[in-house]
C-alpha cells in the first residue's frame, strides 16, 4: 500500500481527502503543521507528499526547500495543494522542486485524486 503524507492545517480537509484516498487504496499520514510534516517525511519516507503553503510553525515553501535539500527526501514527489494562486507562488514552488501546483478552489476531489495517481506514476 502506497503512503501519502498530507501536510495541511485544516483538519476538515485532512479528513475529506484522507477518506477518499483510503477508498482508493492509499494510506495517508496526516501532519497539521510544517515542522511535523518535515519530521514525518524524514521518518516515514512516504511515496508522495501533499503540501499546503500557509502552515503553522513552518511555511510550506520552507518545508519544500528543506525536503529538496535533504538527500533522503529529495526524490519524493511533492504536490503543492493550496488556495494561493499568484504566478510568483506557482513559479517559486516549481523552482523549489514541486511536481505539480494545484489550487484547491479550482479542483474537485476526483481531479485531485487523478493528479495524485499521475504523480505516483499510476
Amino acid at each position, binding site marked *: 500500500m502506497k503512503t501519502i503524507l498530507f501536510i495541511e492545517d485544516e483538519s*476538515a480537509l485532512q479528513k475529506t481527502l484522507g477518506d477518499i484516498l483510503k477508498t482508493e487504496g492509499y494510506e495517508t499520514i496526516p501532519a497539521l503543521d510544517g515542522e511535523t510534516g518535515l519530521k514525518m517525511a524524514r521518518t516515514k519516507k512516504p511515496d508522495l507528499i501533499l503540501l499546503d503553503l500557509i502552515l503553522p510553525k513552518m511555511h510550506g515553501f520552507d518545508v519544500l526547500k528543506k525536503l529538496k535539500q535533504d538527500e533522503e527526501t529529495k526524490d519524493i514527489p511533492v504536490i503543492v495543494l493550496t488556495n494561493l494562486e499568484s504566478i510568483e507562488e506557482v513559479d517559486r514552488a516549481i523552482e523549489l522542486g514541486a511536481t505539480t501546483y494545484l489550487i484547491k*478552489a479550482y479542483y*474537485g476531489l476526483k481531479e485531485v485524486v487523478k493528479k495524485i495517481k499521475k504523480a505516483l506514476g499510476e
Partner: protein
Amino acid sequence: MCYTKIIMLFKEVLDQLNISAQCKKYNLSLWQCPQFLFLIMGIVIIVSALTAYNIGTRHIEDPLMVSLIVLVLVAVLFVLTFVITQGYERLAEANRMKSEFISVATHQLRSPLSNLRWVIELLMSEKSGQTKKEQTDYFGILKENINRMQDLISELLTVSRIEAAKLPVRKKDFSIKELIEDLISEYRPFIEASNVKISFNARGNLPQVFSDPLHLRLVIENLLDNAIRYIKDRGGVEIELFKKGKNICFSIKDTGVGIPEMDKKYIFRKFFRSRNVLKYQTQGAGLGLYISKAIIKRLGGKIFFKSKEGVGSTFWFTLPIKK
C-alpha cells in the same frame, strides 16, 4: 534611543519625498497622486507669492504692508493646499484599503468553500455510504451554489488585482479559434438548455496570437455567457473571428434583451447591472464586463459594443497578433 528615533523620522520624511514610490502605493497616475498635487501646489504658491509681491510693490508704497499681504496670501494658499491634498490622500488610502480588504476577505473565504465542496463531492460519490436519490439531488444544489460563490470570489479577486495593478499576464502563442471552439463545446449543455442557436465563423486562415490564453478565455467566456444568458426565450448568437491588419478581431452578436440607451455609458463599470437585465436574470454581480475591459486593455487591445434594447447587442474586441 533618541538618535534612532531621529533617524527613523528622517527616513520617513525622505520616504514622503519619494513621490514616485508614494504614487505607486496608491496605484494612481501621477496627476491624481496627492503627493504630486502637493508639489504642484507648492510651485503655484511660490509663483503666486512672487506675482503678488511684484504687483504689490507697484501699487503699495509701504514695503511692510506688501510683505504682510504676500505672507497672508501664502499662508491661506498653503492651508488650502494642505487641506485639499490631505482629503485626497485619505480618499486614495481608503480606496487602497478597500482593495486590500477584498483581497484578504476573498482569500479567507476560499478555504472553507473548498472544504465544503470537497465534503459534498465525497457524499455524492457514495464512498462514504449509500445516499438516497433525493439526498444526492440536494447535494447537487449545494454544490451548484458553492460553485457560484467560488466564481464570485474569483471575480472579486481578479477585480482586486486589476485595481492594485497586479493582474499577472503570461503570454504565449496560441490559437483563439481553438479556444473559442473549446468554450462553445463546454457551453453546449447551457446553449441547448437556453434554446439558443449558436454559429461560429472563423474567416480565412487565422494566425496564432501572442497573448495570455487564460485571461482571454475569461473574456470570451464572459461575453459568451452574457450573450446566451440575456436571450429571453429562444434566439441566436453569432460569433466571428477575423484578421484586421495587425490585429485579430473577435465579435459576438446576440438577439438578447439589449442595453437601454441610458445605461450604455455605465456598462463597463464595476458592479453595474442594467435595469432591464435585472428583470430576466437576478444572478450576476456586474463584474464580467468590467473585468473583460480591463483584461483587453492590459493585453493591448480595445473592446467596443453596440446595442439596441429589445433587439440585441454586439460586443467586439481587437487584439494585437504579435508583441
